[in-house]
């Protein structure tokens, strides 16, 4: 149970939060009337809130520790890993109906809700694909890439420019944009082959900024900060569509894209190449000593990761019908990275959930207006403290000794 020490600690935590939030929660300066309002009651709320929350968190941890202690006493070595999410993912009896319900909801979604909601959902779906792409590089192959948005930009600009100069349509550019981004991935991959961890992160960060700065400053090529407008929305066999219809069309297109991505990424991860990526993440030297070509493995990871960003970039350009460099700042890279880390490195379902949460949460938190980003940041911190392995920790494929291996 909670000891006196915990109470003391909670008290200190409350004091610390009072100190931290004092300027924004307590003092309110009114520059017109030149008065300062001291909202002492807010200070009380902050103190009480943090005090109680700390104690609840503490209680939670104590319970967990006690539970583990009990397990140890009973001689159970490893905790059986059948919590609800593992079961949901592994048992077809639960898995298939859940998937079915989700699919129905997704399909009906745009007919029930407003265009505004559909637009938000399209963005979220785009971030799912981006997250899954970056997941290959960061989550699976363990190469920390902070410049992922560069490939997104390459895709978006390839549609904008190819349409502007050559009049190419959406469906032609979609694979082209992906491939262009993939070749940029290889371009980035070559100089960073020998780098790891922090150093790699810095170089990729630089790469992302270089692409953005080129787009911003090379006016003849990219039309500079004013961007390129009048990019056509994706067509459907030359059909004329109203704005609402074309957004709905884009929504279904994104659903298809997400399913396609999940399919491909899942197969890649469960293949010889996927295993090599995982091994590369785990131990680079052992990986080489086992006969894996480090160069090739890293480059395929960069290329296949960038490919998705390029495709989504094309869709992004088609959705907004306008691109400019301001859409491709470091913040975008950081958000996509957040999705991967929060979802759980290497876990496809985790990334999907994280993308939905991270994209939809700020939208639906608009009710809290000013505190929206505060709540958002707080959620991230709490999540990482209590579940550092992400929403869904990686589940490895299991095999049984039969004539053919079964996937569970």
């Amino acid at each position: 149970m909670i000891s006196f020490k915990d109470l003391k600690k909670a008290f200190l935590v409350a004091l610390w939060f009072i100190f931290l939030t004092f300027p924004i929660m307590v003092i309110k300066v009114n520059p017109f009337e030149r008065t300062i309002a001291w909202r002492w009651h807010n200070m009380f709320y902050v103190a009480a809130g943090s005090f109680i929350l700390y104690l609840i968190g503490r209680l939670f941890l104590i319970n967990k520790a006690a539970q583990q202690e009990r397990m140890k006493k009973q001689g159970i070595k490893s905790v059986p890993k059948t919590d609800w999410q593992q079961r949901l993912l592994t048992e077809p009896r639960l898995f298939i109906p859940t998937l079915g319900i989700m699919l129905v909801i997704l399909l009906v979604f745009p007919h029930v809700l407003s265009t505004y909601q559909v637009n938000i959902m399209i963005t979220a779906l785009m971030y799912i694909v981006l997250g899954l792409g970056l997941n290959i590089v960061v989550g699976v192959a363990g190469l920390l890439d902070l410049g992922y948005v560069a490939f997104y930009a390459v895709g978006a600009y390839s549609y904008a420019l190819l349409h502007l100069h050559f009049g190419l349509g959406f469906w032609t550019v979609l694979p082209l944009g992906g491939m262009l981004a993939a070749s940029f991935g290889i371009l980035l991959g070559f100089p960073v082959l020998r780098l790891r961890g922090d150093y790699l992160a810095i170089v990729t960060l630089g790469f992302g900024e270089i692409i953005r700065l080129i787009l911003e400053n090379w006016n003849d090529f990219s039309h500079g900060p004013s961007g390129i407008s009048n990019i056509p929305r994706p067509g459907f066999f030359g059909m004329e569509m109203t704005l609402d219809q074309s957004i709905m069309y884009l929504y279904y297109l994104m659903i298809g894209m997400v399913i396609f991505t999940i399919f491909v990424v899942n197969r890649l991860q469960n293949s010889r190449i996927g295993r090599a990526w995982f091994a590369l993440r785990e131990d680079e030297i052992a990986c080489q000593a086992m006969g894996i070509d480090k160069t090739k493995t890293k480059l395929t990871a960069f290329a296949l990761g960038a490919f998705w960003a390029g495709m989504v970039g094309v869709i992004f350009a088609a959705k907004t019908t306008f691109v400019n460099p301001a859409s491709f700042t470091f913040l975008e890279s950081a958000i996509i990275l957040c999705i991967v880390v929060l979802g759980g490195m290497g876990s496809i379902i985790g990334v999907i959930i994280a993308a939905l949460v991270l994209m939809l949460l700020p939208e639906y938190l608009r009710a809290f207006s000013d505190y929206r980003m505060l709540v958002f940041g707080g959620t991230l911190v709490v999540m990482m403290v209590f579940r550092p392995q992400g929403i869904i920790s990686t589940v490895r494929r299991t095999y049984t000794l039969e004539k053919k291996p079964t996937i569970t």
Partner: protein
Amino acid sequence: MTTDTPILEIKGLTMNFGGIRALDNLDLQIRKGEIVALIGPNGAGKTTFFNCLTGIYKPSAGELLLTPPGQTTRRLNGLKPNRVTQQGLARTFQNIRLFPNMTVLENVMIGRHCRTRAKVLGAIFRNKKTVQEEKEIVALAFKILEKIGLADMVNEFAKNLPYGAQRRLEIARALATEPNILLLDEPAAGMNPQETAELDNLITEIRDDGLSILLIEHDMKLVMSLSDHIFVVDYGKKIAEGSPDQIRNNPAVIKAYLGEDV
């Protein structure tokens, strides 16, 4: 079992780290089906020798010549580690380097990487060839794990294995690359006497399958019982070589280990 052409011949291997000469003009031969031990005090350069041989370091001078049975001689100098493994040299590490967050079976399956060739498109479309190859990888990995005695923990994470099992898993992973020569870097380190005895049997079994084994080891009992031939190094120089009996009574070896004349 032994034939006359050495499967691996090392001539004048020298490795400098700046001004320090870690290996000095080392010669060594291994024949097919032979267990050769490399011993020496701590810091003598044994692991450096392994790293030079497997391409992790680039040797400053010397020749590394591999002659797989029934094939022509080839140089291993300057090859990348993965190419060396492909040529038929597989190794384990002194401080275990498994892939901790992968299952036991996957660890072994990684070893098959250099003997298989499924590409990206194969992985996506899962054509017949890829599926077949994947099946073979799984089957072979199971076979090796059974032999090593880890068949009942195939789906455990490698990091959750007990220490001795981790050491054996490293050997299993190396065997999956179908090596001609197996390089074991202190496989018995930290093992209890029973585990060491099991290891002794395992290494003999592997040798009986026709592999050559180069062993770095501090456990003298194990070295003496297993080895056909022993090389002793100290300060990067070879100070003695010969059969276990010759080494046991070699004054230079005793001096290197105990530090004075006897």
